[in-house]
């Protein structure tokens, strides 16, 4: 058998295939981050938490409503995307408003809601908090709807968007931790995809490939390509790209830019939730599952070039491969290799591999 650096080539091939599977998760997640960053200019730190939420929604659908994996694959992104839309409208958008009234309504209603629910209805603190968040968001939405639209003139720093979404991530993860513990919950592989195939290359067995993993690659490729097509080749995508370049000009053409921003955030978040559902059967469904991943996904986005759609897809898959390679030769470093690459790339190409220098 041919060996490469002392590792049988068949085994190496298997490892690279596995790397590609991990790469699919990086690709979907970084794609969502890139879409959001492109239009909102915000590094969405809550991405990991919403990925986790996607997995949990799939679990809840199954255990509370008896809805299985395939429907969850559609429903969970829709539900989490909806949550994302509410977050954007009530938390992120007001960042660039010139006054803070909507935020005061939001925080005030949330606080009152919490007091009423926890003391008036003696709900557990976690549930009361979730209920209060719903009340707060509802109140702020009604308030925003009743008053004339806010012109978003204030330029917001990256930093505030990042800190805000970081805070939201802490809250979301904490609530899930309170309700479901940290050990995680079981979620099985859908029966249609159970089992696997023995992959052979010239009759030499390479590895046992579970059907589900093959499905992960296929599903993520489809989603990534569809997103890329939508953004680069359709009219809607053209608006989106134009709004990224110059929002004022686009809104002058009669396009509702704030709505587009909101929907984009919802879409980016839905992608994260989709990745979450894909991950549920193979990774432990626990509240911390996104926290460990988010930093790596950031690195992927930066290496690909902030806001670059194609960049994040290609880099996602490529870094999965690189990681897979590292796991064979220097497994301890497999979580650090991405950061080494990031420093090198940023030093050589400051705007990332696919980014345009500003």
């Amino acid at each position: 058998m041919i060996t490469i650096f002392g590792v049988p080539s068949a085994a190496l091939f298997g490892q690279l295939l596995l790397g590609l599977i991990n790469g699919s998760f990086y690709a979907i997640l970084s794609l969502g981050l890139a879409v959001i960053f492109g239009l909102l200019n915000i590094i969405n730190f809550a991405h990991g938490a919403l990925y986790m939420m996607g997995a949990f929604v799939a679990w809840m659908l199954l255990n509370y409503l008896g809805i299985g994996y395939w429907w969850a694959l559609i429903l969970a992104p829709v539900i989490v995307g909806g949550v994302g839309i509410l977050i954007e409208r009530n938390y992120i958008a007001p960042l660039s408003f010139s006054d803070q009234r909507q935020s005061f309504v939001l925080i005030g209603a949330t606080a009152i809601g919490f007091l009423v629910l926890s003391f008036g209805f003696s709900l557990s603190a976690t549930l009361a908090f979730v209920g209060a968040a719903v009340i707060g968001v509802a109140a702020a939405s009604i308030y925003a709807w009743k008053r004339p639209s806010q012109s978003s003139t204030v330029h917001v720093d990256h930093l505030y968007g990042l800190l805000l979404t970081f805070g939201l991530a802490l809250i979301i993860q904490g609530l899930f931790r309170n309700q479901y513990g940290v050990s995680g919950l079981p979620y099985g592989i859908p029966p249609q995809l159970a089992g696997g195939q023995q992959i052979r290359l010239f009759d030499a067995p390479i590895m046992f490939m579970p059907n589900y993993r093959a499905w992960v690659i296929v599903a993520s490729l489809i989603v990534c390509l569809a997103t890329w097509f939508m953004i680069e080749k359709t009219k809607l995508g053209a608006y989106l790209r134009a709004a990224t370049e110059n929002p004022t000009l686009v809104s002058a053409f009669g396009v509702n830019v704030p709505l587009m921003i909101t929907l984009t955030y919802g879409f980016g978040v839905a992608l994260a939730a989709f990745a979450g559902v894909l991950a549920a059967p193979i990774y432990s469904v626990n509240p911390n599952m996104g926290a460990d991943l988010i930093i790596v996904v950031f690195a992927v986005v930066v290496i690909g070039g902030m806001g670059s759609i194609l960049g994040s897809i290609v880099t996602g898959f490529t870094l999965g491969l690189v990681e897979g390679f590292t796991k064979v030769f220097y497994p301890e470093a497999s979580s650090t290799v991405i950061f080494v690459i990031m420093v090198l790339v940023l030093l050589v190409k400051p705007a990332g591999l696919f980014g345009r220098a500003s």
Partner: protein
Amino acid sequence: MANATTAGAALPADTNIPTVLHEPRGTASFHLKVFIGIAVALVIAPFVLYPVFLMKVLCFALFALAFNLLLGYGGLLSFGHAAYFGMASYLSAYSAKVWGFSPELAILTGTATAALLGLVFGAVAIRRQGIYFSMITLALAQMVFFFCLQAKFTGGEDGIQAVPRGRLFGFINLADDRVLYFVVAAVFLFGLALIYRIIHSPFGQVLKAIRDNEPRAVSLGYRANQYKLAVFVLSTTLAGLAGALKAIVFQLASLTDVHWSMSGEVVLMTLVGGMGTVFGPIVGAAVIVAMANYLATLGAWVTIVQGIIFVLCVLLFREGILGLVARWVKRPL
């Protein structure tokens, strides 16, 4: 947020950080009063509050002050300050425990390590701006974390435990919490005064000019990168001093100190206290450390409360606690 509406491209130019370029008259004497107030509070505090808790606050306050020097006055957001804090803490612990260094030498060793690390990393990082600068610092810090995890001398996740506090200058016994407290307080005051001097020196003025408009500063003949590197190294050195002190106070150095969440925590402290205020990070550190200590019985709610504070700060009090106070007393703090 006077300059909030000015259009700009990269992070340093369009930050909403209140500028302290134009200080009203009498600010210096006001700040002197604040200084004296802090010094008096530091003397009284250990008789009212628990000294170990106070020392923790002081270490983190110094760390946050160092971080704020870079962010508030250099306009550079580092996501990897835990690396300098943590490495200094390891080196100080290791030299005190294994090489038998006296505490002052151990702290010096740790601080020097952070300075050296800052020089190397800074030289790499300051070549990029805005969010790319932040990501490079984060990536470098992740590598330091990996190194600390792998290296034998750090003791892995057990950390370096049972570090002797020793005798300062050979005759001051630091085993007594109160004695150690006054040493820490003195170092803290020294750090605060140093940072205050840096901010108000000609060097600090050039920094602020670079932060607000780098091309203009360059066109005036200032070598922006040299200034940035200098403030980066100053910041990492002081962060290292904080980390080295902490190792002696708690008699341990561990992976927590180099983990990226520590870098996040120092951002939180600075944000809560008030970015770009001189004294804000002290308040921020006090609030966050007090929360971690006194809300510990709340269990999982600590992180939720932290998240709520983040959200509240960003949505409602973007200028932080001292920013609000400063607006109220109409003087920069």
